[in-house]
C-alpha cells in the first residue's frame, strides 16, 4: 500500500484562534516501505498519522492511498494509538480478536490467531485478563497485537514502544522488522527515539518544531537486523539528533 501526502497543511481552531499544526508536508511512501517520523513533542506527528488513518482531515492539500483519496478509517490501515486504547470491558484475548470478530471470522479461528499474537508479544497467560490488570507496557503490547492480528496492509504506529523497558522494546523492534519483512506491510512509525527510528526504518523523516515542517529525510541502507554498534549506525544517529537539537 502506497501513500502520498501532497502539500498538506493542518490547523485546528482552539479557543477561537487558529493553530497551525503542520505545514507543507510532502511525503510519498512506497508500497512495502518502512518509514519513520521523528520530531519534537507537539510538532504534529500524531496529527499526520491520524490524517493518514482517515481519523482527521487536512485543512489544505491531499492525502491518497494507492492513488485514491483517504476518506475515512479502514481496516487496511491498522492504527496503534499513542494513548491506551484497549476496550476495558474486553479480555486481552477478545481485544486482540476484535478486528477478525467484526469481519465475521468464526470464534475458533480468531482465538487461535489472537493466541499466536499474544505469544508473540510475550503475554501468554494473560489471555483472560482485563486491561486494568495489566501494566502500561503490557497494555501497549496488547494494542500492537490487536492491530497486527487484523492483518492490515499498512500499519500506522504512534510511539507504540514508548512505555516499554529497553529489553522488551528491542525484542519487539526486531519482531516488527521480521513481520514487516515477511508480510510486506507498509509501516509508518512515529517515535521521538532516534535510535529506534534508525534501527527500524528505510527512511527517517525529521520534522521541525511546531508548526511541523519536514527538515530532512534520511535514507537508511543498512542491512537488517541492524547493528546498533556499527559506525554507520552511530553516525546516522548523531546526524539526526543534531538536527533535532537545533
Amino acid at each position, binding site marked *: 500500500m502506497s501513500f502520498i501526502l501532497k502539500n498538506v497543511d493542518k490547523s485546528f481552531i482552539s479557543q477561537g484562534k487558529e493553530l497551525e499544526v503542520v505545514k507543507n508536508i510532502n511525503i510519498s511512501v512506497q508500497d512495502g516501505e518502512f518509514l519513520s517520523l521523528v520530531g519534537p513533542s507537539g510538532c504534529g506527528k500524531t496529527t499526520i498519522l491520524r490524517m493518514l488513518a482517515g481519523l482527521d482531515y487536512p485543512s489544505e492539500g491531499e492525502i491518497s492511498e494507492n492513488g485514491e483519496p483517504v476518506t475515512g478509517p479502514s481496516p487496511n490501515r491498522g492504527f496503534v*494509538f499513542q494513548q491506551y486504547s484497549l476496550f476495558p*470491558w*474486553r479480555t486481552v484475548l477478545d481485544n486482540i480478536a476484535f*478486528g477478525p470478530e467484526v*469481519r465475521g471470522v468464526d470464534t475458533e479461528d480468531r482465538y487461535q490467531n489472537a493466541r499466536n499474537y499474544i505469544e508473540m508479544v510475550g503475554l501468554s497467560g494473560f489471555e483472560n485478563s482485563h486491561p486494568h490488570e495489566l501494566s502500561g507496557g503490557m497494555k501497549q503490547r496488547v494494542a500492537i497485537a490487536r492491530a497486527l492480528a487484523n492483518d492490515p496492509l499498512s500499519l500506522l504506529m504512534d510511539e507504540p514502544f514508548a512505555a516499554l523497558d529497553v529489553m522488551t522494546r528491542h525484542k519487539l523492534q526486531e519482531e516488527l522488522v521480521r513481520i514487516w519483512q515477511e508480510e510486506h506491510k507498509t509501516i509508518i512509525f512515529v517515535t521521538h527515539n532516534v535510535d529506534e527510528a534508525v534501527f527500524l526504518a528505510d527512511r527517517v523523516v525529521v520534522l521541525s518544531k511546531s508548526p511541523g515542517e519536514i527538515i530532512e529525510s534520511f535514507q537508511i541502507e543498512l542491512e537488517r537486523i541492524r547493528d546498533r554498534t556499527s559506525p554507520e549506525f552511530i553516525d546516522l544517529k548523531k546526524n539526526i539528533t543534531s538536527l533535532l537539537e537545533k
Partner: protein
Amino acid sequence: MNKTIKALILPLIILIIWAILTTYTGIIPSYLIPSPSAVWVAFENLLLNGSLITDTLSTLTRVLLGFIIAALVAIPLGILLGWSKNANDLSKYIIGVLRPIPPIAWIPFAILWFGVGLGSAIFIIFLGSVFPILINTADGVKRTDKIYTESAYTLGASEFQTLKKVVVPAALPNIITGLKVGIGIGLMCTVAAEMIGSSNGLGYLILTATSMLDSASAIVGMLAIGVIGLGFDYLFRRAEMKINW
C-alpha cells in the same frame, strides 16, 4: 457481615429514641407519630390477614411492568439521542419540557387513555422511570471516549457494530445508574399510580389507612416500599460490581 451490623446501628438508635419519645415518655402523642409497638401490631395484622403480601406483590408487579416498559423505550432512545447529534437537537426541548412534569399531573390523561386500573398505574410508573433511564443512557453514550470508537473503526467495525460492541458496553455503567434511579422514582410514584382505580397495592394501603386515620398501617406500607427499594438497590449494586473494569 461486619458492614451489615454497622449499617444497622443507626436505625436501631432511631428505633430506641422513637420508642422513648412515644411509648415510654409520651412526649410525642400517638396521633402525631404512632409508637413502634403500634406499628408492629399493624404489621402483624396486615401480615396475618394476607393483605401485606398481596399489596406488596401487586405493587411489585406494577412497578416492574412500568419499569421494564420504560427501560425498553428509554435505552434504545437514549442510545439514539447520545449518538446522533440531530436526534439530540431535535428532541432537546421536548424532553426538557416533559421531564419536569410530575407523573401525578398526568392522571387525568392516564384515565382517558388507559382507563381506570392497571394500565393507568403502569403508565404513571413508566413516566417516573423513563426519564432518568433516558438521560443517563444518552449521557453515557455521549461520554464514550473517542479513542474507543476510533479504535473500532480502524479495526474495521461498521457504525452499527461500533454502537453494539463498543458504545453500549462503554455506556453500561451509566445505563445501570439510570436503571437504578429509574426504578427508585418508579417506586416513588406508586402512591400516585394507585390513586386511580386500584383496590390493592402498597400505595392503596397507605391511602386507605390514611383516610381511616390508621397511621400505624400507613407506616407499614411506607416501610414496605422502602424495603423493596433497598432490595432493588442491592440488585443493581451487584450488577455494578460485576462490571468493575
